[in-house]
């Protein structure tokens, strides 16, 4: 659906995007994640035809994004920090955007789907933050787009509104649309995105599905439990365990393998080792990011 080759974006002398390449497949949720200033929005705006690239090639459904009027008939965009006029009502905003397209979607159906049917006559500025973001998605969908661009959709929303938004985004994908989104929330990317692209310092640091990225980063699972009088040396014989730490009867075992947890449990049961409070944590995107950059994204934002 989207092909990007060696895309470079510059602001005067500052390089915001430095020769990146990636492709987005039809019907997937593709997430660009990274700290502020990594080049996420610049990349997005190039694909949306709102910014000129300084180099490289971009194709959105075979269209050059600079051919804006053709492009905007088939994509829908939600812009970061964009709002709507203070004095406009929901209904007026929807009618206005409907007039922009040859075959607009029925905004009443969209409002109902987003739980805003009773808000038609409200001023947009009187809505809650979550409702306003939903309106911005409704407006993006009036275009009946095959591709939906969502830039920092859930930033500033409370946890419940964020969860609602996640389900809505999934439902958009499930009806066959392609979604390109940016976020700096790791859990959001893990939950929503079929594939993610980690951007750091204007470049792509890693790209793939979350399990692929975790595997590439060669991160270990951590299995923790407490046990009294445990012989640390004996645990080292468990297949797949590479590293063990012990502190006040608490043990952390690190290792890899699809059946690591089962192997640990089977081994300890067979050897009559008593243990309590068993838990297993799998490495996630946050750990991948930490390993690639040396710092935590949540701390950087």
């Amino acid at each position, binding site marked *: 659906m989207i092909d990007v080759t060696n895309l470079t974006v510059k602001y005067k002398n500052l390089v915001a995007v430095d020769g990146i390449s990636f492709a987005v497949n039809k019907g997937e949720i593709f997430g660009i994640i990274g700290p502020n200033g990594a080049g996420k929005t610049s990349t997005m705006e190039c694909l949306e035809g709102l910014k000129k690239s300084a180099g490289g090639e971009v194709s959105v459904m075979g269209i050059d994004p600079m051919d804006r009027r*053709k492009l905007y008939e088939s994509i829908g965009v939600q812009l970061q920090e964009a709002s709507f006029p203070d004095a406009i009502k929901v209904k007026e905003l929807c009618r206005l*955007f409907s*007039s922009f397209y040859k075959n607009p979607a029925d905004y009443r159906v969209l409002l109902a789907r987003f739980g805003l049917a009773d808000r038609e006559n409200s001023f947009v500025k009187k809505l809650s933050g979550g409702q306003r973001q939903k309106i911005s998605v409704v407006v993006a969908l009036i275009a009946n787009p095959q591709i939906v661009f969502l830039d920092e959709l859930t930033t500033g929303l409370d946890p419940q509104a964020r969860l609602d938004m996640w389900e809505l985004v999934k439902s958009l994908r499930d009806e066959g649309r392609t979604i390109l989104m940016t976020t700096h929330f790791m859990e959001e990317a893990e939950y929503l995105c079929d594939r993610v692209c980690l951007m750091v310092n204007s470049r792509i640091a890693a790209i793939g599905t979350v399990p692929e990225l975790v595997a590439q980063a060669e991160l270990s699972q951590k299995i923790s439990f407490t046990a009294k009088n445990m012989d640390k040396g004996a645990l080292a014989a468990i297949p797949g365990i590479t590293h063990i730490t012990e502190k006040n009867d608490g043990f952390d075992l690190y290792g890899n393998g699809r059946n690591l947890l089962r192997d640990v449990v089977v081994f300890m049961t067979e050897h009559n080792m008593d243990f309590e409070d068993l838990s297993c944590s799998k490495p996630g995107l946050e750990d991948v990011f930490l390993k690639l950059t040396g710092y935590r994204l949540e701390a950087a934002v």
Partner: protein
Amino acid sequence: MNAFLQMSMTEFRMALRNFIYMFFAFVFPPMMLLLFGGMYGNEPTAFYGGHGAVDVLTPAYIGMILAVSGIMGLPLQISEYRQHKILKRFKATPIHTGSIMLPHFIVNCLLSMIGTAILIVVGIGVFHLHFLGNVFPFLFAYFLSMACIFSIGFLIAAVAPNIRAASAIAYIIYFPMLFLSGATMPLQMLPKVMLTISKFIPLTYCVEILQGTWMGDPLSSFLKPILVTASIAVVCTGVSIKIFRWE
């Protein structure tokens, strides 16, 4: 419906919801007319060159209404749209960029015409206002003044980095313009220094041609103010288009 029409209608509705704008465009000028008309009446006096005060003040107040729409309405709307990335959002749709910008001009033009109509109706109803000129020269003066004032507003919108700056510039230009251009007080009341300052205020020339054509003087006697207003319109519009930023 056609995007351009829908955009214009929506902008019009939104402008009507702006209380400050509506007050200064629709209420304030007739209020001034009632106030000063009430004081001086509309009988011919030597002070107003043998004309009635209301007959002289009305075309000047028309200039004031143009200044409200052009200097306060237009730039504040556009800078709000830019600061809140509404212009950018509209750009991310298939509509022509003209359909984004032109409605602002059309709506403010329409609002200033409505304000003018209200003023004239009040003048006729309360003070037996007289129009002593010819319709076409007056309309020429009216639309030329509008082009001049709106182009200044457009320039403010193009130069101001945000809403605060735009409103500061608009107010700084609007209020001195009101009192020193003859739009509220007759210029003959001003001392020499202030009269000199008024020569640097574009609205002064607009008021001069509006008043002159209202009183029936031929356009040929206003070559200098016509040239000044037309030049301002051309230069400000050109510069604004050149430096205008969408975000």
